[in-house]
């Protein structure tokens, strides 16, 4: 086997050699450094190779030719090999990154860097506690010295604080080791672990001091002020080393010590880890300095790792699983954190506000995004799998406190990381021109990214049997990213072709019943709308790849079979939609609230899924869900999770902004397609929760009221919007409310109405949004009162909107009426009379905003500035034309949609006998309600009664005199500026007077309150960091004593 001692020897020789060869040339010493780092990394890699391909069971090596209790043993197994490989590779990358700085700073710094690596390697390898202490000191002293690489006052002060804290930690460690040796008579960890030593108080205290020394080195909240200062002020390359290499090595030794610790320490350590994770993330909320923010994130992640290593034993988790989880979290954090520190060094902007200069640097932006998203725990990065497993374990075994803390902490972390990301992506007019990039410094983060993806694939494939197509979204992202330099239209058409082929040959055959319906909505609906994106002139970098990822994940959502497949896909969908929203001009705030609510929802879904029995691979999730029955908690969690995606009242606050700020065409997809994914999820929950819901009537009642209130308040809020996209956003929310209402009935007819609306809403909302996208494109504004009279300029868009609003309002003969009819009859049939009444009110209110929409935009007086507006581009018309045809088709022949829906629903809820189709006539003969609707006949009659008067008019009105729009008389004169008479702004003032009090934004105020409170709390917590080294020292002492007392160690 590869002797681990060579790792140590190489570093030592390198470090000793450097001052000497430096006399010849500085480049020579840098060469020695690179050689040592690369050589050690390759040694580790060789060892990994050995372990994989030649079965060497021997992992221990000892020194001086004596057996371990006498001599010092080193272990070089899989964990150590992997860890040292990463550490040394990171060391090498840091070396590359720091090359210039090291070259300037003097030869000693090169030696110190090598010795830092030596310390880390030794700490990882050694199996002897005192030897560990020695290597820890080497590591720490090297770190102290490197902090001085930046000779600013702050860096030096931070370094000194660090030395004080580190000195205290080593003192504790040494005292602990001394006393523990008294009790154990050995220093070798393996021998020690086998001994049975009576747990006297003294022994426990000795062990306590040992472990606390490492806990302090791991920088737990709140005893970590020194570490934060260091992260903030040290050279970014050094901070990166501390966050990755230093923390990694210390953590691994901490892990090695755990078997020695009395059982009662473990929950204590787990608790400290959790507290550190949660509160560090909370405190970070207010942080504006990028490096310090990373420091908080780093301490938080370490806290989580501490919890994983110490807390999961309680739950009878197999140690290898614990390692898998820890590994996933660790590697993600390891690479992403060092990568971010590197980027921070390249950007050179201290505050997160100023990171918008990244926008001009696509490569940096992509790297930044990858690191941020990896840290957030989104798939496919290893942290995702780790979190998945943690939550599985905690949820199944009732670790609710830990689960809550972890999810809350993760959400907080996502909040500040993604806010930062948003700030970087946002468009800023006064951003300075960036200087040319330091290409050498770019290499490390680039390699880091590649490594991260490699690890992701490795971890994903290692433990899980993921269905092979689960990575399709990523594959699509990759392929289209490569194609991204092609012209937009080519890419778009390729995407359409790819989705078409994939959907038709791969997805469709695997679907049945409800799956086919949703397949049509999710894939078909999205496919048609892809055309709409193609009108842009530019290349639109990133658009098509993300769209591809989104649509492929939508398809996978239907074919996913296991719980993990489903959740993974769900997160892919969330991720890609978030990035697509980010493409909006000033969408970073809206996108943030979207992703936070989505992640919150996803966490609830994750917890809910964890409580469910495993699903077998091979059969689609939605089909299996029929055989499963879930509990109350699961139902509620999953329900809320999916409701967030649909934008139900109470959790809708993300919706208007996200819809308004996303790119116009994407808003259409968001509203018409993506919200249906939430509907799909909700449907599955209802299927699985049949038993629970039967036992708890209240739940369904609550859901139905939630649905109808969503419909009502959505409609009411839409009435008062001046922004056309917000109006439509609220309208979507309202429509989704009806869908929820329909499903909440848990009756055949109710589900038919929900699904019917799911379909029709896709058609008419996409139609309107696409038309409005054209209008906004041409007029350059979203405010309706800045438009007017566009019917003459954009007749086709007008027709689209007209068809759309007739359908939305539910006026016969178009398909919209079907949804109204289904919903009212099903409501009354189920005895939900008051919901029906309120729903009716809501749909009446819809007329207000729909009229406002079409009138203020297309009718009335045109603005002189919009004299030269042209019809929407051809590509935007395509989806509109398709949707109009579809709407006309299903209005005339509703059976083509109502019958399949009914038969799909009957898989889950049997079709009652009293519901029947005779021709196009749907008859309801329930004992409690009779009714019927013949869509075909209504259409024909309407055509008739419309056609005759029209003919009559045409006949007698041959000499109609056409006049211009401006040709009006108002208040007995021809207005000098006719467009000033356009009745548009605050159109429903009277309605506002009467009912405006209903929509005072209480819910938004609530969520704002939540934000504000958490920020105040963060501020309060951050004020413990006074900047004084002695105060920090005091914190550490107090921290140790408090834990000792709280732990009740005796």
């Amino acid at each position, binding site marked *: 086997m590869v002797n681990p001692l060579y790792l140590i020897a190489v570093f030592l020789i390198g470090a000793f050699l450097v001052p000497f060869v430096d006399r010849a040339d500085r480049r020579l010493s840098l060469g020695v450094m690179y050689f040592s780092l690369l050589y050690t990394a390759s040694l580790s890699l060789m060892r990994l190779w050995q372990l994989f391909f030649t079965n060497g069971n021997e992992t221990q090596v000892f020194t001086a030719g004596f057996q371990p209790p006498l001599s010092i043993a080193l272990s070089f197994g899989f964990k150590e090999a992997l860890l040292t490989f990463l550490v040394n590779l990171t060391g090498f990358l840091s070396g590359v990154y720091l090359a210039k700085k090291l070259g300037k700073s003097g030869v000693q710094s090169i030696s110190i860097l090598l010795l830092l690596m030596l310390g880390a390697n030794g700490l990882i390898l050694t199996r002897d506690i*005192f030897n560990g202490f*020695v290597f820890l*000191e080497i590591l720490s*002293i090297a770190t*102290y*010295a490197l902090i*001085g690489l930046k*000779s*600013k*006052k*702050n860096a*030096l*002060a*931070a*370094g*000194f*604080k660090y*030395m*004080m804290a580190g*000195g*205290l930690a*080593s*003192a504790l460690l*040494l*005292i602990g*080791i*001394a*006393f523990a*040796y*008294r009790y154990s008579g050995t*220093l070798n960890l393996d021998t020690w672990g086998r001994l049975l030593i009576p747990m006297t108080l003294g022994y426990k205290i000795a062990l306590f001091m040992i472990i606390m020394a490492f806990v302090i080195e791991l920088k737990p909240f709140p005893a970590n*002020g020194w570490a934060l*200062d260091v992260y*903030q*002020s040290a050279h970014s390359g050094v901070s990166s080393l501390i966050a990755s290499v230093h923390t990694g090595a210390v953590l691994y030794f901490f892990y090695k010590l755990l078997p020695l610790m009395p059982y009662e320490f473990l929950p204590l350590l787990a608790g400290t880890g959790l507290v550190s994770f949660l509160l560090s993330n909370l405190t970070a909320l207010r942080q504006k300095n990028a490096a310090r923010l990373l420091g908080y994130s780093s301490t938080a992640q370490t806290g989580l790792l501490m919890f994983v290593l110490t807390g999961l034993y309680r739950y009878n988790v197999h140690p290898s699983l614990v390692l898998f989880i820890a590994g996933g979290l660790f590697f993600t954090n390891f690479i992403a954190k060092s990568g971010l520190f590197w980027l921070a060094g390249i950007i050179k902007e201290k505050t997160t506000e100023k990171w918008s200069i990244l926008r001009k640097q696509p490569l940096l932006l992509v790297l930044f995004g990858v690191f941020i998203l990896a840290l957030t725990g989104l798939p496919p990065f290893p942290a995702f799998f780790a979190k998945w497993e943690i939550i599985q374990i905690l949820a199944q075994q009732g670790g609710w406190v830990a689960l809550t803390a972890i999810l809350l902490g993760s959400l907080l972390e996502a909040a500040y990381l993604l806010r930062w990301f948003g700030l970087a992506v946002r468009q800023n007019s006064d951003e300075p021109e960036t200087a040319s990039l330091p290409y050498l410094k770019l290499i490390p983060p680039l390699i880091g990214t590649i490594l991260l993806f490699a690890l992701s694939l490795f971890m994903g494939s290692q433990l899980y049997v993921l269905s092979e197509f689960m990575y399709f979204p990523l594959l699509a992202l990759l392929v289209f990213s490569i194609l991204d330099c092609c012209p937009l239209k080519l890419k778009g058409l390729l995407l359409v072709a790819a989705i078409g082929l994939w959907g038709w040959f791969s997805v469709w055959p695997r679907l049945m019943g409800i799956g086919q319906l949703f397949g049509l909505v999710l894939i078909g609906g999205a496919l048609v709308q892809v055309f709409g994106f193609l009108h842009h002139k530019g290349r639109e970098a990133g658009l098509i790849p993300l769209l591809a990822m989104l649509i492929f994940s939508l398809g996978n959502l239907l074919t996913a079979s296991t719980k993990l497949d489903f959740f993974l896909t769900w997160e892919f969908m969330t991720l890609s939609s978030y990035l697509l929203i980010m493409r909006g001009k000033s969408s970073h705030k809206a996108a943030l609230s979207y992703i936070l609510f989505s992640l919150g929802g996803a966490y609830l879904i994750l917890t809910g899924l964890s409580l469910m029995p495993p699903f077998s691979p091979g059969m689609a999730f939605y089909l299996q869900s029929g055989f499963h029955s879930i509990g109350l908690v699961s139902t509620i969690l999953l329900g809320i999770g999916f409701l967030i995606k649909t934008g139900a009242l109470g959790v809708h606050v993300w919706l208007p902004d996200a819809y308004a700020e996303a790119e116009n065409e994407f808003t259409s997809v968001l509203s018409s397609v993506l919200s249906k994914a939430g509907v799909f999820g909700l449907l599955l929950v209802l299927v699985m929760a049949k038993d629970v819901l039967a036992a708890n009537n209240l739940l369904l009642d609550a859901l139905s009221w939630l649905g109808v209130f969503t419909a009502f308040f959505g409609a009411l809020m839409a009435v008062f919007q001046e922004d056309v996209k917000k109006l439509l956003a609220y309208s979507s929310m309202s429509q989704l409310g009806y869908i929820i209402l329909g499903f909440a009935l848990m009756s055949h007819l109710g589900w038919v109405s929900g699904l019917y609306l799911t379909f029709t809403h896709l058609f008419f909302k996409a139609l309107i949004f696409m038309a409005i996208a054209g209008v906004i494109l041409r007029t350059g504004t979203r405010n309706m009162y800045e438009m007017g009279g566009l019917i003459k300029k954009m007749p086709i868009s007008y027709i689209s909107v007209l068809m759309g609003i007739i359908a939305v309002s539910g006026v016969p003969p178009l398909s919209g009426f079907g949804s109204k009819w289904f919903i009212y009859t099903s409501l009354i049939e189920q005895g939900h009379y008051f919901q029906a009444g309120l729903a009716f009110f809501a749909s009446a209110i819809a007329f207000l905003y729909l009229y406002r929409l079409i009138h203020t935009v297309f009718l009335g007086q045109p603005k002189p500035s919009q004299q030269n507006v042209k019809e929407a581009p051809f590509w935007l018309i395509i989806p509109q034309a398709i949707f109009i045809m579809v709407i006309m088709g299903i209005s005339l022949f509703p059976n083509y949609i109502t019958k399949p829906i009914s038969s799909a629903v009957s898989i889950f809820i049997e079709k009652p006998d009293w519901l029947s189709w005779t021709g196009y006539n749907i008859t309801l003969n329930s004992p409690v309600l009779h009714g019927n609707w013949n869509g075909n006949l209504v259409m024909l009659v309407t055509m008739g009664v419309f056609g005759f008067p029209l003919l009559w008019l045409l006949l007698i009105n041959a000499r109609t005199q056409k006049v211009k729009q401006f040709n009006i008389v108002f208040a007995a004169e021809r207005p000098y500026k006719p467009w000033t008479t356009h009745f548009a702004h605050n159109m429903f003032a009277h309605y506002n007077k009467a009912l405006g009090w209903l929509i005072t934004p209480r819910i938004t105020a609530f969520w704002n309150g939540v934000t504000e409170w958490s920020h105040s709390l963060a501020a309060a917590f*951050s*004020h413990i*960091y*006074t*900047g*004084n*080294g*002695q105060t920090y*020292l*005091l914190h550490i*002492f107090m921290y140790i004593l408090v834990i000792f007392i709280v732990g009740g160690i005796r």
Partner: protein
Amino acid sequence: MIILITGLLLIIIGFWAMLTRKNLIRIIIGFAVMDTGINIVLVAIGYVKGKTAPIIDKAVTMAQGAEAGIQAVDKVVDPVPSALVLTAIVIGLAVTALMLAYAIRMYKTGNSLDIDDFEEQKW
């Protein structure tokens, strides 16, 4: 026993100095005192009643080689803490030296040796 208590007391005195003294040099001295305390504790721990230093000279036995080993075993104190203390001393020295270097540099950049003057960075 008394040695042990002395050591622990020194450690606490070191703590006290590190926590309360404002001058960087004094803090470093506090650290050094603490270090010394630890070393004393280490030595105290290795002591075995009535035994001599773990060096096999004529005072211990006249024998040589393995024979000497057998005879010396119950006549000398534990050599391990002695070995450890050697390492601990060197490490303590190293840290102290680095701390001093830090203090000098801090004095040059911040023009002060008072630790309270180095807390600009916070929250």
